[in-house]
């Protein structure tokens, strides 16, 4: 290992973990880890004259120090050729529960996978290189950076068959021997199949990044490793495989075509015994522009059933935080109170927050000398009005479906959904992935710190770092609680079944539909019927309050059906805003532009 390179990487790590990394106090307390001391020990070993470290030993230790913090946001990224490479096996495993026992089932096979008799979709894997599969997954999970138990299991399972080498060293074994029970004859004797690890090498580039909103975005919240693996898996297994509810179970409504198929791979109506509902899958918040994302979501939900929506964000690893947070307003008549973001108080954050973009945080950080506070004041990322500038667009009840892979922006979205009491959360795991922070890539940190001698932008071989720099705290009943490590606990847990794995989530969708069925439905719409009149249609609403902008206009008790509302033109503002109440509860809202 070249000494100057190793020493520089260690110096940068120590400085940024100590003075910029926002979760260090939490991680020290929660996992009893001391990454700073481990880095100092590594520095000593690196500079030892007898038996100096090899490159592999050095990188192994760097990865271990970062993964021990159990934070997918905060990582050391290996240089080329690792960061453009992903090791994979030609199949995918998923967990399900049968007769109260967790089982591991093959859910997908690549077309190039070698054929082994009986090894197909639905095959139950029992052992992995001779180790019982549950033990093998648990052991793998310990190496991964997932935080709570559910997240660790999800990360451990995912990395059984795919690993981005930018953040994991290549597997030790060249091949694996899988013991399995054939899918078609499950009572027959176990068989063994051998699969060779292969490495997919993406065309490398100095600009190699996966974040659409850019590694330089200050508003990123994403599990980058998971996102690389998701994109590589999509490429290897086929971009156009069907992922939405199957027509044979839910009617021939057919998927709507989205202009953003990677983001919305499935959006359609599902016919169930509990009613006809909309189903929308949001596969990622990794978009370049939150406005285009919101407009596409509005277009999609306008074409689907208004009786209720199953919003499925399983496996969504995050992306642009605004995309998730601003989406919330479309699903509720009440104003959204967004999460709060805090820096750690340090000399580095004191310096960074002198910049205009972060100045709102500066005063509380500067005061820390006197207050001794560990974290800055918690503030929203955008001005409050931006979280409510569009208003409700879907008035039916909503069930949000989560899992332990939901991370960062998706955690923040799920927390906002629960804390603003938008609807029920149905989880296939006991928690979301628990990534509660805004993450900054190393080049962005270099730009902000402006110390090229200490923090050179170009590290050898395009090595890099990422750090969680602003922690998230929740609002509402969970006000002030951190999202990191705890995640969002669903209101109800669905035990994933073999049918879910093999029949495109059929039991899960029925479970979500059963939750939506008894929930009250309502409808409030307004259309212009004359130069100064509006036809207002109401269903399951007792009273309508009208505003021009923020100023009250009138309050009307209503019967089911329609009413005409007169708006004098001289009072015209930007929009006619209507709020529909049932009893004392605000249940629907709509806005109509006045010009």
């Amino acid at each position, binding site marked *: 290992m070249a000494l100057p390179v190793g020493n520089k990487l260690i110096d940068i790590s120590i400085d940024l973990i100590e003075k910029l990394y926002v979760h260090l106090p939490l991680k020290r307390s929660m996992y009893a880890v001391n990454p700073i001391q481990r880095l100092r020990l590594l520095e000593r070993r690196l500079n030892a004259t007898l038996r100096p470290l090899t490159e*592999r030993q050095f990188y192994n230790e760097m990865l271990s120090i970062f993964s021990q913090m159990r934070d997918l946001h905060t990582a050391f990224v290996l240089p080329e*050729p690792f960061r453009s490479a992903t090791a994979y096996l030609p199949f995918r495993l998923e967990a399900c529960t049968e007769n109260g026992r967790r089982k591991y089932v093959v859910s997908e096979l690549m077309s190039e996978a070698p054929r082994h008799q009986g090894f197909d979709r639905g095959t139950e894997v029992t052992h992995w290189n001779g180790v019982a599969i549950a033990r093998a997954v648990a052991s793998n999970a310990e190496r991964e950076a997932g935080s709570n138990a559910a997240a660790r299991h999800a990360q451990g399972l995912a990395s059984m068959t795919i690993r981005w080498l930018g953040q994991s060293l290549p597997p030790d074994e060249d091949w694996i021997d899988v013991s399995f029970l054939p899918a078609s004859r499950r009572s027959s004797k176990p068989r063994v199949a051998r699969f060779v690890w292969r490495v997919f090498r*993406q065309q490398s580039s*100095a600009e190699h990044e*996966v974040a659409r909103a850019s590694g330089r*975005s200050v508003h990123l919240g994403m599990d980058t490793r998971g996102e690389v693996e998701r994109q590589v898996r999509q490429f290897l297994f086929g971009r156009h495989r069907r992922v939405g509810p199957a027509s044979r179970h839910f009617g021939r409504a057919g998927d709507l075509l989205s202009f953003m198929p990677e983001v919305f791979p499935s959006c359609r109506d599902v016919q169930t015994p509990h009613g006809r509902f909309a189903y929308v899958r949001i596969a990622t918040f990794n978009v*370049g522009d939150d406005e285009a994302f919101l407009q596409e979501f509005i277009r999609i939900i306008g074409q689907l059933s208004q009786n209720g929506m199953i919003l499925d964000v399983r496996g969504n690893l995050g992306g642009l935080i605004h995309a998730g947070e601003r989406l919330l307003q479309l699903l509720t008549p009440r104003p959204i109170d967004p999460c709060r973001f805090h820096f750690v108080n340090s000399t580095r954050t004191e310096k960074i927050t002198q910049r205009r973009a972060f100045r709102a945080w500066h005063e509380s950080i500067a005061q820390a000398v006197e207050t001794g506070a560990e974290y800055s004041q918690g503030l929203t990322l955008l001005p409050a009005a931006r979280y409510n500038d569009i208003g409700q667009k879907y008035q039916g009840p909503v069930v949000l479906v989560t899992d332990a892979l939901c991370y960062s922006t998706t955690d923040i979205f799920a927390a906002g959904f629960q804390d603003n009491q938008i609807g029920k959360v149905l989880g296939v795991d006991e928690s979301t992935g628990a990534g509660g922070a805004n993450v900054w890539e190393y080049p962005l940190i270099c730009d902000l710190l402006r110390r090229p001698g200490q923090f050179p932008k170009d590290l050898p071989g395009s090595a890099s770092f990422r750090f969680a720099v602003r922690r998230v705290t929740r609002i509402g009943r969970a006000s002030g609680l951190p999202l990191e490590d705890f995640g969002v606990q669903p209101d109800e847990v669905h035990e994933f079944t073999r049918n879910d794995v093999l029949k495109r989530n059929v039991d899960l969708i029925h479970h979500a539909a059963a939750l939506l069925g008894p929930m009250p439905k309502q409808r409030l719409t307004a259309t212009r019927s004359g130069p100064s009149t509006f036809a207002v249609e109401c269903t399951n609403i007792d009273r309508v309050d009208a505003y021009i902008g923020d100023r009250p206009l009138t309050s009307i008790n209503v019967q089911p059906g329609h009413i005409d509302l007169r708006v004098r033109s001289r009072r015209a503002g930007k929009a006619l805003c209507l709020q529909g109440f049932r009893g004392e509860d605000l249940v629907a809202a709509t806005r109509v532009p006045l010009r």
Partner: protein
Amino acid sequence: MQKQAARDPNRGPSSKQIEQSFDKGTTVPLDSFRDIIDWS
């Protein structure tokens, strides 16, 4: 790709750019990759 990134440092690669980098990718067995990285 590099030219575009230089023009707009706040924008990441487009889907098309990522697709292209995947389409031009290659697959090798793990032991061949070990030869590339030259780690014993």
